[in-house]
């Protein structure tokens, strides 16, 4: 295959997007068919490129070290394929879900434009090209959120834009530092020790990556978007694309660009962020009243596992993190799509209003339960495999605290999904929701595909581990030792697996106790935790957005601008406006008094002048 084929995954979706923009809103079916067809073509292209393994395209762009060069190697091919797969599922899903959306004309355009930019970002081999495609996603995310048509959806769109902007600007700073220290911008040529300036570069690049992935503290726009943005967007961006891109870049940063040593300060930073994200996000998720918001918080908490995995800097940990990324993308998208199908049919995602839909929507219920079990890490699904690898890695770092945090996360994840599943599908049939029936097949099919994938990746985990994850970690391991994760992947009888099973049981007990206390109402299952003394205040504070980096940031910016305006800008203007004028008038007044029109006065001035001149000349004479 020629090198220019690498341009196809970028140019093809962009062209499709432009065509989709141009199709007038009136023509109904053509847009949907074109979108699904092109996503299938893209999927085929993904498979074709995956089989190619290695391809490089170098072209001149802006000179002085900035070239338009793309590089397909094992890891980026795998991500490209995953992106194409999810794009296909979501486009198929949106055909029905977004059918009668007033601004449908723009929706598909933005989706395919986002796909083009993501493919570009994955394939880029020059930092400037990477940041170009990486930041372009900001605009498509902004536009897609505004499609939610809620009154507050624009506010959330701006919030995502500014938080994204903050992370991407820090990434530019990181790239600048890398360029300053290595002198080159081609990504595969950069390999640094993270000390001093390079450490700062690592931190800044890491901020860019986890900002896109949606980890703490840059996560606050995702829960708001869960309500304000269309559910297909939630499945499309926060669930799959952003996680894939974010963790792909984080993996490349810690593997390719910088040497991450076990227990080195940089690794510690990653571990801490991962742990904190897992625990705090899962606590927030537990108490949510809305189905989509609950899922969005889980999306944030699962990212914690991936970051924790990569942070361990141990081959099994990193492999676990990367494997968790693809698993999470699958079951999170599945969960969101099932929530979407519930919303499609029941009209609301309020846990209070829903109940007992399993009978009317059997397939969605089945899909949901498989994905829920997978996310909770129940044996033998894919969640269990990747979580075990992360637990092993976390233990081997020698700091058990991180493993404990991971386990706590696992407990509450399972507890909250029990609450969600029980209140939406399996509890008594709620009266507020009218009689419904299963959603159309284009909605249900993607959920089922994802469920099946979760099962296959779990049971037959040799397939993903061997050809997707193994090559990525190959560079990491000592030369001799052959990395084999598949061996003990599914055996239940190791101490680590035992602890995990214990956690699941505790979660079951917790849910049962909460369900009993709440008077047999599933959606109140998490109330006991909610009303614990210290936790209660924290929950209220976070409800009032106190910990939200965006709200605090905006307040700070507004305050700083007011200070600068009042103390620097206005005084300078005051000088020109008032002081110069007053000085002028003062002197003018001074001389004017000397001109009172009397002749004697003038004569006095004249004679005085004469005497002065005479005196001066006499002084100056040699």
């Amino acid at each position, binding site marked *: 295959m020629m090198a220019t084929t690498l341009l196809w995954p970028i140019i093809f979706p962009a062209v499709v997007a432009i065509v989709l923009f141009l199709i007038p809103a009136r023509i109904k079916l053509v847009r949907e068919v074109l979108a699904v067809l092109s996503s299938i073509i893209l999927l085929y292209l993904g498979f074709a490129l995956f089989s190619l393994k290695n391809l490089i395209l170098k072209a001149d762009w802006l000179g002085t070290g900035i070239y338009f060069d793309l590089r397909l190697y094992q890891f980026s091919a795998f991500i490209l394929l995953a992106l194409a797969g999810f794009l296909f599922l979501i486009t198929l899903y949106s055909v029905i879900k977004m059918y009668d959306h007033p601004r449908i004309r723009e929706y598909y355009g933005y989706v395919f434009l986002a796909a083009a930019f993501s493919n570009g970002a994955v394939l880029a081999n020059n930092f400037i090209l990477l940041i170009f495609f990486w930041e372009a996603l900001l605009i498509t995310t902004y536009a897609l959120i505004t499609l939610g048509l809620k009154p507050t959806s624009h506010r959330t769109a701006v919030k995502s834009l500014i938080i994204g902007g903050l992370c991407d600007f820090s990434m530019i700073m990181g790239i600048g530092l890398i360029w300053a220290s290595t002198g080159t911008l081609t990504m595969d040529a950069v390999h640094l020790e993270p000390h001093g300036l390079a450490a700062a570069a690592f931190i800044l690049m890491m901020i860019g990556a986890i900002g896109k992935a949606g980890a703490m503290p840059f996560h606050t726009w995702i829960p708001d978007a869960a309500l304000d943005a269309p559910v297909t967007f939630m499945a499309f961006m926060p669930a799959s694309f952003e996680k894939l891109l974010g963790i792909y870049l984080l993996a490349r940063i810690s593997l390719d660009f910088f040497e991450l040593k076990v227990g080195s300060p940089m690794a510690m930073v990653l571990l801490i962020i991962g742990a904190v994200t897992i625990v705090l996000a899962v606590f927030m998720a537990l108490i949510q009243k809305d189905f989509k918001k609950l899922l969005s918080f889980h999306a944030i908490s699962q990212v914690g596992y991936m970051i924790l995995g990569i942070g361990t800097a141990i081959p099994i940990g990193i492999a676990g993190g990367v494997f968790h990324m693809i698993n999470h993308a699958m079951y999170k998208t599945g969960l969101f799509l099932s929530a979407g199908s519930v919303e499609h049919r029941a009209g609301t995602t309020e846990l209070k209003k829903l109940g007992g839909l399993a009978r009317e929507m059997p397939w969605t219920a089945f899909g949901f339960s498989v994905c829920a079990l997978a996310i909770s890490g129940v044996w033998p699904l894919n969640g269990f495999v990747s979580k075990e690898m992360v637990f092993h890695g976390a233990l081997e770092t020698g700091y058990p605290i991180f493993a404990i945090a991971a386990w706590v996360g696992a407990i509450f994840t399972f507890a909250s999904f029990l609450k969600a599943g029980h209140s939406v599908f399996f509890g008594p049939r709620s009266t507020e929701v009218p009689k419904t029936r299963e959603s159309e097949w284009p909605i249900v099919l993607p959920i089922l595909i994802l469920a099946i994938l979760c099962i296959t990746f779990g049971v037959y985990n040799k397939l993903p581990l061997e050809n997707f994850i193994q090559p990525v970690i190959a560079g990491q391991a000592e030369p001799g030792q052959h990395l084999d994760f598949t061996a003990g992947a599914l055996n239940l009888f190791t101490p680590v697996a035992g602890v995990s099973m214990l956690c699941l049981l505790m979660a079951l007990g917790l849910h049962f106790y909460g369900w009993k206390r709440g008077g047999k109402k599933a959606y109140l299952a998490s109330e006991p935790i909610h009303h614990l003394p210290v936790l209660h205040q924290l929950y209220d504070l976070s409800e009032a957005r106190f910990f939200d980096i965006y709200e605090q940031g905006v307040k700070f910016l507004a305050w700083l601008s007011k200070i600068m305006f009042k103390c620097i800008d206005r005084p300078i203007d005051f000088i020109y406006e008032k002081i110069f004028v007053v000085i002028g008038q003062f002197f003018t007044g001074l001389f004017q008094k000397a*001109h009172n029109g009397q002749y004697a006065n003038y004569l006095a*001035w*004249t004679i*005085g002048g004469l005497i002065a001149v005479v005196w001066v*000349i006499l002084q100056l004479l040699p």
Partner: protein
Amino acid sequence: MAFSFIFIPLLLAACLPLIGKFSKKLIPDVLTNAALAFLLFNSILLIKPVLSRGSFFENINWFGENINLQIALDGFNLFMLFTISLVSLCITLFSIDYLKHYGHQANFYALLLVMVAGMNGLVLVIDLFSVYLFLEVAAVASYALVAFGLGSEELEASFKYLMLSVVASAFILLSITVIFGLTGSLSFQAVARGLQDLNAGLAVGVCLAFFIMGFGLKAALVPFHAWLPDAHPSAPAPISAMLSGLLIKVSGVYALFRIVYSVIGMTPALSRVLMAMGAISIVVAALLALGQNDIKRMLAYSSISQVGYIILGLAIGTPLGIAGGLFHLFNHAVAKGLLFLNSGSIQHITGTRNLNELGGLGKKVPITAGTNLIGALSIAGVPPLAGFWSKLIIIIALVQAKHFGYALVAVLASILTLWYYLLIQRKAFFGPLNERWQKIKEAPFWMTTANIILALLCLLVGIFFTPVFNTWITPAADALARGVQQVLMWGI
């Protein structure tokens, strides 16, 4: 030939009152303008001979028998003659319409011609006492012209102007007599030769002090400037243009620097004194101008400030400085004449000179507004008009002569200058239209043409400043810069 500059105006002035008897307006207008046009044409004709022979000397013979009336003509005073005749021609053109409500056109023209003759004489003459005499001729004519309106305010202003000028002339005469005492003769050449080999430092110093006081008052330098802001507003517009544009330059600046450079010889001490006085008058007059709300009074202060620039330029002593000073003299004469004539047309249109009563005239009288803008910007030194080049050359000369302080003063003062000219623009022309002036219409024909001619001059000299500079300014500057040698080699 050069003698005609004195003889023709005097002759015409003598017979104008008679002509005025039987034709009130037409013939005096035509005759005066024709005479001045002839003088202008004559001065242009004289460029070739002066350029070729440096300077030449004329001896008048009365019907064959030579009666040793000597006048000398070199680059410097030819330049002055050209400026005088050019500006006074425009002024007389302006006053054709302006003097309707004064009446007595003939008397006015006669006095004006006597003043022109006085100035021409002062410029052409070669000995000190005749300088004094022609100074008096121009001064007496100007006293009468300032009081021409016969209002109580005009008479009082003219009286004040008379009393101060007389004091100045007395001091000038005193120092001429001291010099006569020292060198025993009055002609420039003899005095120059006498003073060279006489080391009477103190006496010459005191004479110079009196000269500076006398001619300083005539040129309205700051300590002696008090008469100008009162004399100008009350004088009729053409006369204040004449006074501000020409008289203070000829009887003040020309006389002082002709004596300083060509007779006594410039010394560093004297240049420092003159530059200090120039700089003071720039700043003080500019500040005073800011506080006025009568157009003519503000323009009068502006003249004092700009004369300060001219003196600052001339006093540097380097040829470039002198060239800058002279070029600014010409530009200021043209631009200030334009502004005073413009204030005359404003007064003619609206009947008032008070800036607070005027407002937004630009809409109704675009030509007057436009010409006022061009004149103002030219004096403020804003390119591409003429004033910019002369100020630029003065500042270059200042910096070359290492007077950074004065250069900074010159630069900052031009901001003040622009400030008060913008004040006029804002209050009179550029602001919202004052409803009182809904019905005003453009000034009469001759007044507008005079304004337009002077405005065009400002613009064209600005754009084609090279030919103007090479033909007029460089020979004048060389003549002055050669200093005492210039007079010694006059070859009689």
